[in-house]
C-alpha cells in the first residue's frame, strides 16, 4: 500500500510540474494502469502497437498484473522492470515509457525511444577521394552501430558512462580489450569519471576535459568524422570516445604524426602516400613560416637571395607605403577574416566570399599599391597550405602561432624567427597525450614506426605502432 501511495503521488507530482509528460490511463477489467511517456521522444507507432494495443486487447481471465504484462502481453523488444519511484522520471526523460499499476510494487520500463536523427551522411570535414562515405551523425546508437559494423571482434569493449548532471549525456569508451594498453584505457576512464559538469553538449566539451591542461596549445585528442578513421584508430590500439549528440568521435592518445594522416594514404599507392605525407609536412611548415620568411628576407636579410631576386623583390615593393611586417600582418589578418567569413556564411552565398577575396586581395590591393604582388602570393599559399589537413584541429594552433612567429620575426629578424621555431618545437615535444609523447614516432625516434607512418602501407605494417605499447603488438 505504501508503494501504491508513492506511485500515485509521483503521478500527481509529474502532472503538477508541467514537464510535458503524457499520462495515459487505462482500465482493464477494473484495474487501473498508467502509461507515462514524453510524446516528443517516443515512437508513437511503437507505443500504440506494442504497448497500448496489446493491453487493451487483453481478454484473458487471469488478473492483469505487471508480471503478466512483462512476460506475456507487451510486444516491445527492450523491456525492464524497476521498483524505485525516484528513477521513474529519469527513465521518462530518457524517452522510455513507464507502465505502472498503482497496486503493484514495481513498474515496467519499455524502450519506445524515437529520436529525430539525420541519416548516415557523407562526411563534411574529413573528405577524400577514395574514402568510405559513412560519417558519424548526432545519434549515439547509430554511431555505435557503425563501429560495431566494422569491428566484429568479441574483444571490442564499449564502456558506457553518463556525463552531465543535467544533460545526462551518454558517452561510450570503445577499445579492443586485448590490444589497447590498459594504462591509457584507465586514464581515459579516470578523466571521464572525474568530469562533474551540468551538461555535455558536444564532444568538444569532452575533448577539453581530457586535456592535460586547459592552456595546452596543441590538440591532444584526435577527432574522427568517419567511422573507418575511428575503427582504424581502435585497431591500432587507440581508444575511441563516442558522445551522444556529437557527430565527431574522439580518439586518444594522439600524436602530431596522426594529424598528418588523412586516412586516404592507407588505401592508396605507397608512393602517393609518401608524397602526400611529405606534401602535408611542407604545408604545415609553410603555413607557419611563409609570411615570416617574407618579412625576414625583405626587412632583415635580403642578401640570402640571389641578386636578381633581390632586385625583383625591391622593384615589386617600390609603391608599398608600409614596411613588410605591417604589410604581412594586415594581409594575414584579412586572410583570416576571409576564412572566418567563409566558414560562417550560408552555403548559398559562400562562393561570394571567394569572389570578394579574389578581388579585394588579389587585384584591388595590389592595384592600389597597398601590398606587393609577392605578398599576395605568399598569403594565398599560406592559406592554401592550411587546408591540406583532414583534422582541422591541428591547424587552429598553427594559425595562432603564425602570428606569434610573425611578430617575433618582425622585431628580431632571423633571430626572432629561429627563436620562434625553437620555442614551438619545444612546445610540441613537451606536449603529451594521455602520457604519450606528442612527437612520437619522431621524438622519441623509432625507425620502424617512422617508416610505417611514412609509407602508410598495411602490407608492410606488420606490427602496431610501438609507441602505443599495445598488448597485441602484431597486425599480421
Amino acid at each position, binding site marked *: 500500500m505504501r508503494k501504491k501511495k508513492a506511485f500515485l503521488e509521483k503521478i500527481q507530482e509529474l502532472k503538477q510540474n508541467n514537464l510535458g509528460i503524457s499520462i495515459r490511463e487505462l482500465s482493464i477489467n477494473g484495474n487501473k494502469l498508467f502509461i507515462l511517456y514524453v510524446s516528443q521522444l517516443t515512437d508513437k507507432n511503437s507505443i500504440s502497437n506494442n504497448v497500448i494495443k496489446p493491453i487493451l486487447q487483453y481478454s484473458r481471465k487471469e488478473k492483469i498484473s505487471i508480471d503478466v504484462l512483462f512476460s506475456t502481453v507487451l510486444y516491445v523488444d527492450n523491456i525492464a522492470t524497476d521498483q524505485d519511484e525516484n528513477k521513474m522520471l529519469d527513465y521518462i526523460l530518457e524517452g522510455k515509457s513507464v507502465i505502472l499499476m498503482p497496486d503493484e510494487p514495481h513498474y515496467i520500463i519499455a524502450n519506445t525511444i524515437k529520436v529525430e536523427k539525420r541519416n548516415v551522411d557523407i562526411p563534411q570535414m574529413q573528405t577524400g577521394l577514395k574514402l568510405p562515405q559513412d560519417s558519424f551523425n548526432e545519434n549515439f546508437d547509430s554511431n555505435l552501430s557503425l563501429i560495431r559494423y566494422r569491428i566484429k571482434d568479441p574483444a571490442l569493449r564499449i564502456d558506457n558512462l553518463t556525463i552531465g548532471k543535467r544533460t545526462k549525456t551518454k558517452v561510450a569508451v570503445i577499445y579492443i580489450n586485448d590490444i589497447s594498453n590498459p594504462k591509457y584505457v584507465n586514464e581515459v576512464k579516470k578523466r571521464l569519471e572525474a568530469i562533474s559538469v551540468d551538461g555535455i553538449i558536444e564532444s568538444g566539451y569532452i575533448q577539453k576535459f581530457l586535456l592535460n591542461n586547459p592552456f595546452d596549445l596543441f590538440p591532444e585528442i584526435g577527432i574522427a568524422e568517419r567511422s573507418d578513421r575511428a575503427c582504424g584508430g581502435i585497431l591500432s590500439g587507440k581508444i575511441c570516445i563516442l558522445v551522444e549528440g556529437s557527430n565527431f568521435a574522439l580518439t586518444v592518445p594522439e600524436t602530431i604524426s596522426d594529424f598528418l594522416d588523412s586516412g586516404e594514404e592507407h588505401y592508396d599507392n605507397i608512393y602517393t602516400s609518401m608524397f602526400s605525407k611529405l606534401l602535408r609536412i611542407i604545408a604545415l611548415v609553410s603555413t607557419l613560416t611563409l609570411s615570416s620568411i617574407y618579412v625576414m628576407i625583405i626587412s632583415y636579410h635580403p642578401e640570402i637571395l640571389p641578386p636578381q631576386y633581390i*632586385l625583383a623583390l625591391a622593384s615589386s615593393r*617600390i609603391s608599398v607605403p608600409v614596411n613588410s611586417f605591417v604589410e604581412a600582418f594586415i594581409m594575414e589578418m584579412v586572410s583570416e577574416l576571409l576564412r572566418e567569413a567563409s566558414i560562417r556564411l550560408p552555403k548559398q552565398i559562400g562562393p561570394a566570399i571567394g569572389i570578394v577575396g579574389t578581388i579585394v586581395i588579389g587585384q584591388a590591393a595590389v592595384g592600389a599599391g597597398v601590398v606587393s604582388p609577392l605578398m599576395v602570393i605568399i598569403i594565398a599559399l599560406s592559406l592554401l597550405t592550411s587546408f591540406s589537413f583532414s583534422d582541422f584541429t591541428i591547424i587552429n594552433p598553427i594559425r595562432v602561432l603564425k602570428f606569434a612567429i610573425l611578430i617575433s620575426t618582425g622585431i628580431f629578424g632571423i633571430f626572432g624567427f629561429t627563436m620562434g621555431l625553437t620555442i614551438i618545437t619545444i612546445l610540441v615535444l613537451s606536449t603529451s597525450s594521455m602520457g604519450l609523447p606528442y612527437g612520437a614516432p619522431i621524438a622519441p625516434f623509432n625507425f620502424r614506426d617512422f617508416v610505417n607512418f611514412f609509407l602508410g602501407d598495411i602490407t608492410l605494417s606488420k606490427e602496431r605502432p610501438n609507441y602505443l605499447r599495445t598488448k597485441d603488438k602484431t597486425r599480421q
Partner: protein
Amino acid sequence: MKRIPDKFLCILTLTSLLTGCWDFQDINRRSVTISVGVDSVNNNAIEYSGENARMIPSQSTGNNSQSPQSSLGISTFSDVSGKTFEDARENYTLQTPFPDFLGAVRVLVFGKNFAQQGIEAYVNRINRIFGYRKSLPLVVSEQHPTEFLGTNVKNNISAGFSIESTLDHLHSEGTAVYPKIADIVSDMAFGNIGFVLPYVGKRNDSIVLLGYAVFKEEKMIDILDIQESKGLVYILGVNPLRVEAIHQPSKENNMLSTRTLLKKRKIITSYKNGKVNIEFKAKAEIQIQFLYNVEPLTDDDKKTLEDIITQRIKREIASFVIKSQKEYKSDIFGFAKYFRADNPNIYKKINWKDTYPDANFSVDIKSKVVNINLFDPNAKDFFKEQK
C-alpha cells in the same frame, strides 16, 4: 602549456638585445649596389664608381590605369673621390638617398692605376666591413672603372652582372680562373705568394676576359694575355678543359676536334740538397668530338694524339711556371701552401720568396683517349682486315 624556464628567457632577451636586428630597413628602401669600381686618380686620390639598382614608381594615368608600375634599371655613379677611402665614401653617402645595401654587389673592379699601387688596403677594408659577400669576385679592368661600369652592355642588364656571369660561366667550363675575395684574403694572409685576378675589358659592348693581372706583394706587376695563360688554368682552374683541333696523324689534311679534361691533379713537393722540388701530376682524358672529314681512326692515331697533347700541356705548364720563377719571381700558383703542408719544418727555415725562383719544377701528364665518339667499336675488326 609548459613553463619556459627563466634562464631560457634571460638568454633569449640578452641575445636578442645583442643581435642588432633593430636596425632593419626594407629592401625597397635601400640603395642596392650592383658593382663597385675603385681606381686611383690625380694626386693618388681614391675614386669610386659603380652601378646601383634604380627603382622608379610611376603611377599610370588615364582610363587604362590598373596598377602602379615600377621599373627596374641600373644607374651608375662616378666622380666620387676623396683622399682616403673614408673621404670618398663620405662623398658617396652625400649623394645617396637610401642606406647602402652591399649584399647584392656582384663584382669589385680595380682600375689599373690602383692595382699597380696595391690593393691590400681595399681588400682588407671589404674583408672587414659588414655587408660584402666573401664570395665577391675581384677583377682588374682594362678601361678606367668609371668608363667601364658606366656604359651599357648588350648581353646583360649591367656590366656588373655581365662580368660575374661571364667569369662564372668560364670558370664552370674549366677555361678560367675565378678567385673570390676570400681566396685573395687567404693568399695575402699566407704571405710569400702572389696571385692573379681576371683582367677584363669591353669589346663591342660586351664584357670580355682578356687575360690575368699578375700580383706580387699585392701590387699588379704584369698582365697576361688569355692565350698565354692556359698553363695557369691547368694548375689553378677547376676541372680544366682544353679544346683544340689537331691534325690527324695518319691523314695530315684531316683535323680532329679534341676536348681534353685534366683530372686527378696532384702537386707533390720535396726538399733535397737545399733545393725545392715541385712536381705537377695529372691525367689528361681526351675526348675526340668529331673528325673534319670522316676517316678511319687507328690505334696509332690515338697513340700519337695522346703524345701530342701530353707534350703541349707539359710545355704550356712548364713555360708558365718558369715565367713565374724567372720573370715574376713570385709564386702565383700557391705552391708554397703545398710545400708547407708537406715539409712544415723546412718551410719555417727557408725563405720561400728566395727559394721559389730556383725550385726544380717537373710536369708529369698521362694522356689517354677515353672517348672517340665517332666510331662503332665493333668496327675494329674491319680496320684490322684493312691493315
